[in-house]
């Protein structure tokens, strides 16, 4: 039996609201969805809440899955949509940057900054520089709009292909590339502003 056939039959079970199948589906995907949502929202409590909502939505709306993409891609799309809505909601309530990763870890420690070189910024202590840059990048990420943040997370963190990102966001591949470029440029501009480098003209 092919993988496609397997998935088709599994989707049929989900459509019949087969609870055992849904349990399996949640167990197989909850980690990945939770990780994506944490990265999108930056708040673990919110991420847990959204992750649950994502699977509840899947259970309710599995009939709308037309099988034009992988089930996991469709799940990602549902998750991204939930994240976008939650980001807008959090922004309206004035949350976001201040609640990102509340575990007290400070990027200035630079403990895991190995491999990161901030050579363009001309600071003497590269380790501290890398840690500081990570903290600044994290803050700059929070300031991005939800579309830019989504593209950056999907491409640069989740390491998805342009094709997969297109399937998740509903954008054609060329649009994904151009918008990702704009997202990266926007991130760079905000980082430079935070580092006191005026004249952010890197786009």
């Amino acid at each position: 039996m092919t993988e496609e056939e397997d998935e088709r039959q599994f989707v049929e079970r989900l459509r019949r609201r087969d609870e055992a199948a849904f349990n399996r589906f949640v167990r197989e995907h909850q980690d990945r969805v939770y990780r994506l949502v944490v990265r999108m929202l930056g708040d673990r409590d919110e991420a847990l809440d959204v992750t649950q909502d994502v699977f509840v939505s899947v259970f309710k709306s599995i009939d709308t899955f037309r099988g034009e993409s992988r089930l996991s891609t469709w799940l990602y799309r549902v998750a991204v949509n939930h994240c976008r809505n939650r980001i807008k909601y959090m922004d309206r309530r004035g949350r976001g940057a201040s609640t990102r990763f509340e575990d007290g870890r400070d990027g200035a420690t630079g403990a895991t900054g190995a491999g990161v070189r901030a050579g363009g910024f001309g600071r003497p202590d590269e380790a501290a520089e890398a840690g500081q840059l990570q903290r600044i990048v994290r803050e700059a990420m929070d300031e991005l709009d939800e579309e830019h943040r989504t593209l950056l997370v999907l491409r640069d963190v989740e390491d998805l292909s342009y094709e997969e990102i297109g399937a998740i966001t509903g954008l054609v591949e060329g649009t994904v590339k151009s918008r990702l470029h704009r997202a990266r440029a926007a991130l760079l501009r905000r980082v430079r502003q935070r580092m006191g480098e005026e004249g952010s003209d890197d786009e």
Partner: protein
Amino acid sequence: MTSDEAREAFDEALDERLSPERREAFEQALARDPELRGEWERYRAVIVAMRAQARRDEPTDFEVDVLPAIQRELRRRSGGRYYRDRFATGGGPGVSLLLVLVAVLLCALVAAWLALHLVSVEHAVAPGVPFDSTVRAASASGQDAAAAGASPSATPDRRRQSVQTTPSGEAGTRYKPAKHIS
């Protein structure tokens, strides 16, 4: 590759999508233009820092299981249509069912003990008919000694006699005193 062309290739270079020829041209453009190289290094550093930051902030509590909460929510929203019981939720029989099973087993054991105890009581309350004589009578009639001990009226003759002499007419009275039996 000009400097502007190289700027446009930043994303391709970052994603390692440049062909070997274009990669070489890109490197040459960076070598020719120090300003371009500075821009490239800043661009790359920010993206690399973002990736490193994401890895660093990666949640380690992946063992968090959202399934029970999802099941509760679905049960609530569906009015109990889905995930009605613990078997459906994958939680197994649970403690309550085990306790019920233990209680049933205990009841069965108590009932068995009481049944055996009553047999002993029957023999004890049958004056005039020693247990030994009942056993001997049963043995003499070719019956199994255990069968004889199961009831004082185990032999057909004695059962008939007992029923006939019951004043209240309660057929099958098993605790009829033996003295009424002639």
